[in-house]
């Protein structure tokens, strides 16, 4: 297992390098002079030159690239243009909230999505199957901010079951959970859609396979065949889909945080955009890139857990 983990980590390095290079290029494709974008066109040439030097934009591109990579290798994301605080401090303060939200959504997605998909496949064209299809169509169709606002209107504004602003105050676990509930349901519903869909189609195929017929023929109860034999073989595509959509989930977590006014990377991104804080924006892109690479590694490690053949091979 250790060798598998080490191999996987080594494989992630080229991807990480490529994604970081992409971030470097993206931030530098700004047409025209980035200092005008940051300072406005009324800025004096001296102020622009000073900013240029502070950002390291006066150096040749290769030197900028080397600086950028070395800085990240040291675990340093630079300083915010606006507050002058280290970006790692700002990110570290809010990252737990985003991780908490994403994990809650993953749990909701798996706990509802997998059983719904299995039952839907078993009773094809029945009531549960139709419900599963409607849930997955709705989950795929709702942009995260639209479903978030509709949930807010229904449960916070009209019914007043949850707070309108999900700011987390204090350490009371019940309060924290209450503030997490609506945002997690919003993000979780999207995950339910993806998980239900892939579980349903995987199970439909698996239930027609020879090994399922054999298991049934030798007298095993249907419950055992469906949940232990068939589902086990569908777990790989389910994990793949969850892993693939972690990227989507991170993007939607950002939106959910904005709608529910919850601390997290989302609010940080919006404030960076509003204040034209390009250093912070670049730092946040690096964090997102790292998150995606880590998510991919975790997905591959999970393969090893659900399918012993992956580890051996």
């Amino acid at each position, binding site marked *: 297992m250790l060798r598998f983990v080490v191999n996987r980590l080594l494989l992630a390095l080229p*991807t990480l390098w*490529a*994604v970081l290079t*992409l971030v470097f290029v*993206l*931030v530098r*494709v*700004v*047409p025209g002079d980035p200092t005008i*974008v940051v300072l406005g066109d009324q800025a004096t040439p001296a102020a622009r030159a000073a900013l240029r030097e502070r950002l390291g934009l006066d150096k040749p591109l290769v030197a900028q690239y080397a600086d950028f990579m070395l800085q990240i290798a040291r675990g340093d994301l630079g300083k915010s243009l606006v507050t002058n605080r280290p970006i790692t401090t700002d990110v570290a303060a809010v990252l737990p909230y985003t991780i908490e939200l994403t994990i809650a959504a993953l749990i909701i997605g798996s706990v509802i999505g997998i059983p719904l998909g299995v039952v839907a496949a078993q009773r094809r064209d029945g009531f549960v199957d139709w419900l599963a299809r409607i849930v997955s*169509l*709705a989950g*795929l*169709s*709702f*942009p*995260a*901010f*639209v479903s978030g*606002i*509709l949930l*807010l*209107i229904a449960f916070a*504004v*009209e019914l007043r079951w949850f707070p*309108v602003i999900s700011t987390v105050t204090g350490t009371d676990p019940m309060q924290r959970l209450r503030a997490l509930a609506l945002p997690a349901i919003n993000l979780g519903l999207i995950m339910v859609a993806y998980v239900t869909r892939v579980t*349903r*189609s995987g199970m*439909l*195929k698996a239930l027609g396979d020879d090994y399922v017929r054999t298991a049934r023929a030798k007298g095993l109860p249907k419950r055992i065949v469906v949940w232990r034999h068939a589902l086990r073989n569908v777990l790989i595509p389910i994990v793949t889909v969850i892993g693939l959509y972690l*990227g*989507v989930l*991170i*993007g*939607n977590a*950002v*939106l959910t945080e*904005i*709608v529910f006014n919850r601390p997290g990377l989302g609010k940080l*991104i*919006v404030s960076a*955009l*509003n204040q034209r804080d*390009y250093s912070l*924006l670049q730092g946040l*892109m690096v964090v*997102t*890139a790292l998150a*995606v*690479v880590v998510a*991919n590694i975790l997905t591959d490690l999970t393969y090893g857990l659900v399918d012993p053949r992956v580890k051996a091979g």
Partner: protein
Amino acid sequence: MSSATAVVVAAPSAWKRATRSGGLAVGLALALTMVVIAIAAPWIAPFDPNDQDVLLKLEPPSAAHLFGTDAFGRDVLSRVIYGARISLFVGALATLAGVVIGTVIGVVSGYLGGVIDRLITAATDVLLSFPQLIMGLMLVAVLGANLFNLILAIAITAVPAFIRVARASTLAMKERDFVDACRALGFGDPRIMFLHVLPNIMDEVVVMASLWFAAAIRTESTLAFIGLGVPPPTATWGGIIRDGFDNLLDASWLSIFPSLAILTIMIALNLIGDGLRDASDPRAPQ
């Protein structure tokens, strides 16, 4: 000859598969209605979408203003109708650009193989690993929010997905006998790629395009909601929801109607995408 016969046999059953659940028909009907509304906006909108009336600020839905009015006293129904234009226009153009660029690169990469293919595949993997929404957001943030940059940014996020689909289909297609026959006849690579391989992979590209059309509209409305859409006062669905979000406690209708509009077009396009996919893949569980 044999492949021509296969197509003739497959065609009716594909149509049957596509129309079996009725989802495709519902999706097409909804989407067409939206397109008609967008085109006919100047004739069917009851008011000018940018006409302000300070005496009618945040009026709830009434007979005169079916969807109510916003914080500037503008008619929300008219703004939702005009908003369809921006969403559909940006979505269609960005998807089209993504399809054309992605498919051409994908076909060339898959057909030629070798170093070019390896480089393109590696670049595609990296681009695909980045969340589409964050990528679009960053691109619009650095390029500046206007109609052209919005289309460009959304198109860029779509390109890698189409490269992957077109490449994978091309890899399967180039081993087929008819491609060997083309080579034996002395056809050049460009001719084989674009006149013979391309038409045969189009069904998969079209399925993907219908789903990406939905994704493009979602990205456009999301960016508008964050404040990176077509600048005000132009009516966009995401923009109206953003205005409504600022007045959520006392004017919830402002967010609800444009949300329903987005939802309708998303459901329509997803139904079309699913219907087309079922039609193109006989093995797909229905």
